């Protein structure tokens, strides 16, 4: 059943958001869950995308994605009114939400998208929320206003200092951890390398840290094992056992390697697609 794109917007150079019709997903979805999307029934690849928000009444969900390969680029070229062939979900276990006390939410780049619904739910559960949002530059900081609306404290960092503090997220994170009233919980979502370093920081302070892993997936229901990661030396399936894990137990190095398993092929497919879109003039259409 195809899913209509209700609206679509560009958030930064390579980050896009769209509201799409997916009634059942919108009703069932909880913070922390994702969908698997494919654009073509015969030949499309299946990619996991975060559900950033949902409107159960309208029957829509909001997706946010970064253009990194063929399918995400193709999706970025679609417009309101176009249809997405397949949307499956919600998948993964919902985030465990309770009143921990003070929670630091660390978001890196596109990681702000899955982080937002979790931060909202944590706020609703009575937590004090300190958010640290980081990106390479100002352009790439997304959802700042939405976070500002729910946070007790908001810290922004950029690698180049074009906005907020010129630092990596780990710097303010370490400072917050050093405070007298040490945070009770940290949630870190972003590139694997960022989550890895955040966990190294929080481990020093012994603060429980939840991370949300974005591995390669096929089915998203536990059937293939392609999404497996090593947790405490044991293989776990991201799509069934979480996406969230105790960050102090994740083998991030291996996960990063697995994420790059098809790098060459993905690059080829992306280049092929770019050539194709030049030929048919899609690049111009999207620039408007």
């Amino acid at each position, binding site marked *: 059943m195809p899913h209509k794109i209700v609206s679509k917007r560009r958030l930064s150079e390579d980050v896009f958001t769209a509201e799409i019709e997916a009634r059942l997903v919108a009703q069932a979805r909880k913070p922390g869950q994702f969908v698997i999307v*494919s654009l073509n029934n015969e030949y499309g*690849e299946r990619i996991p995308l975060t559900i950033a928000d949902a409107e159960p009444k309208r029957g829509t969900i909001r997706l946010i994605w970064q253009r990194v390969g063929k399918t995400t680029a193709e999706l970025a070229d679609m417009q309101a009114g176009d249809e997405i062939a397949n949307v499956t979900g919600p998948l993964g276990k919902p985030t465990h939400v309770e009143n921990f006390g003070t929670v630091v939410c660390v978001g890196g780049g596109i990681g702000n998208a899955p982080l937002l619904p979790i931060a909202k739910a944590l706020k609703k559960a009575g937590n004090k929320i300190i958010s640290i949002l980081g990106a390479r530059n100002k352009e790439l900081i997304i959802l700042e206003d939405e976070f500002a609306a729910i946070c007790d404290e908001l810290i922004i960092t950029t690698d180049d200092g074009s906005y907020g503090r010129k630092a990596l997220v780990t710097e303010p994170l370490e400072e917050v951890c050093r405070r007298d009233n040490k945070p009770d919980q940290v949630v870190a979502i972003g590139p694997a390398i960022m989550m890895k370093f955040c966990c190294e920081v929080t481990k020093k302070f012994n603060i429980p840290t939840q991370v949300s892993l974005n591995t390669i997936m096929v089915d998203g229901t536990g*059937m293939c*094992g392609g999404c497996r990661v090593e947790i405490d030396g044991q293989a776990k399936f991201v799509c069934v056992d979480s996406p969230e894990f105790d960050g102090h137990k994740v083998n991030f190095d*291996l996960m990063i*390697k*697995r994420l790059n398993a098809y790098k060459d092929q993905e690059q080829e497919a992306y280049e092929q697609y770019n050539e194709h879109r030049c030929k048919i003039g899609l690049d111009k259409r999207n620039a408007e």
Partner: protein
Amino acid sequence: MTDKERQELLQRLLEKQKDGGLKPADRYEIPPQDMPEQDPVERARNVNEVATGYTETHARLEALRCLQCKTAPCIKGCPVKIKIQDFIAAVSEGDFKKALTIIKENSLLPAVCGRVCPQEVQCQQTCTVGLKFKDPTKAVSIGRLERFVADLDQEEIIPTVAPNTGMKVAIIGSGPGGIVAAADTRRAGHDVTLFEAFHKTGGVLVYGIPEFRLPKSIVQKEIDVLTKMGVKIVCNFVVGRTRTIEQLMKEDGFDAVYIGVGAGLPRFMGIEGESLVGVYSANEYLTRANLMKAYDFGSGADTPIARSQKVAVTGGGNVAMDSARTAVRLGAEKVYLVYRRTEKEMPARIEEVHHAKQEGVEFHILQSPKRVIGDENSHVTAIECLKYRLGEPDESGRRRPIPIEGSEFQIDVDTVIIAIGNIANPLIRQTTPGLEFNKWGNIVVDENCKTSLEGVYAGGDIVSGAATVILAMGQGRIAASAMNKYLAEKSDCNKPC
């Protein structure tokens, strides 16, 4: 035997039969008809079906080999009790339509079963002809005949559907069991919806069994029949996530549910290096290659798969053979099949083992990986194996493999495919309170495939662990008839008295 010789032989036999019948001795003399196949070198480079199918002459000759035993030992070996000797008699007479009608009384998907059933351990195992030659491969080729008859079936027969009962049935999973359960409950006049988690229907028949063994078009034909019967199909629907069984029954108005979600999570070996880049479960490898058509990557398909030079597959079942043969077709130079016991103990069908060898798969028996070795980029470079010997038989009756200490050695590979089975998927368990499971996580059912929840039935791998396609179909049928009975009673109760 040339085609001409075959035709002449058939003529002679038919005349003899007219003149007073064929004696068993005459029938024993008819040579078993081999299945025509694509040349091994040729087919290793394409994904088309390996076995190209009997001609009419093949089929009638093969059918004449049947002794028409009164006791029909073959039927006892058939999980769905097809009237085998009757359909074979019809084939020998050349009345293929009649043959198909007989098969269809008991089996819904003969084109599928004729291809993937392990006949050598079912109907053909007890065949008198095979026993006479003390060679199961010389038994009457019941499966090939079934396939021949089914493939001739061009005009789709759409089963008649009883008038609407007003009862709603949810079938979860569109694999072999689900297809049968959907057809049988729809025939009884219920409003049936078939839910599938993937974007395509067919379950293991489309993601697991490769095109070269079971063309997707054959499965699609069966699905089309369901649609024409009025079964509603909903893809991308993960029961337990999109909706729970409780929601389906309490909020969405379904009166009965059949759970046929299949095997679930792939089993890994628990050895070092199993998460390195280049290690796949057979499920993942086959799904990428089959369902997602990774063999067309770069010329249409978007799903990548490893570009392997040297592949090791561990396991000895049909799935292991399918994986190895898929790797051959994807262009691997060397494909090794590593198995702890000997060929005799392999659960795979003899035919599949034979095909794999013909296509160049190298068998490493009495060996098993101890760890997977990778380079600095976490890419697989080799497996370290231990050698084994066979000890006393274990509970399964097969001789137990015992590792030989200090026998470690390495095989250089860049890809490893683990094909050692599945464990139950916990999703339904986590989301269906009140449903009873056994200690392995499989759903507990009674002899009617009824679960501990009222109106909920289950069958296939989620119940039996690892079953065959035909067993799943059999259970789908049993469950459907129990559901039909349950719904008839339920609607009687609902009627104002």
